[in-house]
């Protein structure tokens, strides 16, 4: 038995009285709107909204600065989306990055970029069939748009962990691929590192 164990009882009485102050009750609150670009009060190690916004904002700025983003026929270029490849240790919604990039480009490119809805091909083909059969009204017959460039990306991570906490480096890379030549006409990346320590009660 350690010596302090015997000395402690007398001071324990005082400590006990002080320590028995009423327990702080857990505060709760109704859901609040918060800035999706700022770190929330509940932070995790994975990809969070502020990461998504930082990555996609940066990629859109870079894409819009890219020279030569044009259709070979001098028309407005058409972009198709391929969900990002997840090579990280975090399970993510693989479409959310390209979806936000598309929304931002639609908003900021002033009609200088077109997107094709390849994720809705079944519905589109069904409607075209109905039009061709004359079962529904149809305007001018046009072909489906071809894709000039594919936008895609990859998320990778390097992780470290130990009894005290975790560290995650994440690399987000995106590229625009010319569908005629397979040339990558643009590539951009964003990186971030998160570190967190586990509270003593969980170690």
């Amino acid at each position, binding site marked *: 038995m350690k010596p302090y164990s015997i000395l402690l009882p007398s001071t*324990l009485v005082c400590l006990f009285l002080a320590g028995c102050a009423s327990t702080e009750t857990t505060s709760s609150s109704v859901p609040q709107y918060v800035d999706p670009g700022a770190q929330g009060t509940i932070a995790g190690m994975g990809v969070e909204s502020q990461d998504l916004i930082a990555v996609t904002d940066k990629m859109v700025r870079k894409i819009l600065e890219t020279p030569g983003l044009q259709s070979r026929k001098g028309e407005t270029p058409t972009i198709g989306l391929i969900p990002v490849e997840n090579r990280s240790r975090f399970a993510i919604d693989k479409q959310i990055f390209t979806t936000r990039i598309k929304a931002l480009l639609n908003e900021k490119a002033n009609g200088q970029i077109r997107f094709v809805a390849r994720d809705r091909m079944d519905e589109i083909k069904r409607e075209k069939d109905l039009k061709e059969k004359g079962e529904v009204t149809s305007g001018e017959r046009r072909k489906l748009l071809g894709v000039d460039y594919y936008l895609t990306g990859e998320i990778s991570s390097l992780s470290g962990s130990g009894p005290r906490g975790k560290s995650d480096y994440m690399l987000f890379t995106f590229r625009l691929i010319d569908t005629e030549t397979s040339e990558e006409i643009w590539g951009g990346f964003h990186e971030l590192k998160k570190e967190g320590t586990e509270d003593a009660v969980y170690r």
Partner: protein
Amino acid sequence: MLMACCLLGCASTPDPTRKDIATAEKLASDQGPAANLKPYYQRLYFEGESQATLNQMRLAFAAMEQAEWKDAGRALDEVIRDIEALGPADPRSREALSHFESEDIKKFKGETHERAMAYLLRGLLYLKEKDLQNARACFKSVQIQDAAKNDPSLQGNWASADWLEGWCNWNLGERSAAQQCWDRSNQRLSTRNRLPRPSETDNAVCIALLGFGPVKIPKGDHGELLSYREGASRTARVKLKIKEVFKAIPMAEDLFVQASSRGRRLMDQVNEEKADVRSGTETAGDVFITGGMGTTIGGVVADDTDVAVIGLGVTAAGAVTKGIASSIKPKADTRTWDLLPARIHILPFTLPTDANSLEFQLLDEQGGRSGERKVQISHSAPPEIILLIER
């Protein structure tokens, strides 16, 4: 007065997160779960935030046993969100460091093997959804959770997670990465237990989760040390009938080994200190009581009222000290994800396109046949995952 103060101080504080039964039942019914899962949802809402992760874990595994995959996935996502939330714990949880609160007051996050299993099971669900990239992400995270072990040579040593990561890579067309994962997996297993690599025709993997997982038990004079014992299991091994021959499904992971190899936690040290203080305080109380009573008797015998009164005072002080000792709570947190399996078995195989069901032979610890199972198959795009949960 001192005694009165102690009794006042020891008045229990109501659990601030406890909801009444009516609210709990309403919340549970709002989820619209399968009938067999309702008790798990009710428990989740009734027992509040400090038990939420544990109850989500229980709900997730129960849902997997009942093939309620969406409920299981949703619950495991909540568990993973809690596991990944680092930084300072909430004030209530931090009271677990206090001498006068036991460790199980903290919000449950599970020990390393429980956290790792949350990821492994989520990975299996992603495999069922044919989302190989997210499944691979989960299997990678199994090793990250396991890295909280003390011994660096034992950190991140889940052979099952390595093998399954390899299976994802293989089916994503990343053959070289797959071989690396399987090499790693086999390095962690003894030569006798090495897991087979899939052949070119293998389009399915059977994952058997057998028995009941490790149980946390308190050890030490005051239950201050966290220890484990193996859970009871009726089924120890399993065989799958392939081309009219029953083939053993090799064991990839023993959860008792994983749980019991974590090593000493920081909280074990905290609880040991609490136990030391409690023992010391109890001894001091005994000394006061024995001395006080002796003094009292001496005073009575000597007909000295003053001495007798002093003796009674010392005895009372001893009783107070013993009271304080009994309010020190060194017991380790033994809340357990009790539905976990004891072992994980893995076998890749070629699933015939005309097969409607698979036959399994269940064996006990001695190799005796303990039962048979027939699992119906609904064919979908490969790779298929056949999940068998047997106790």
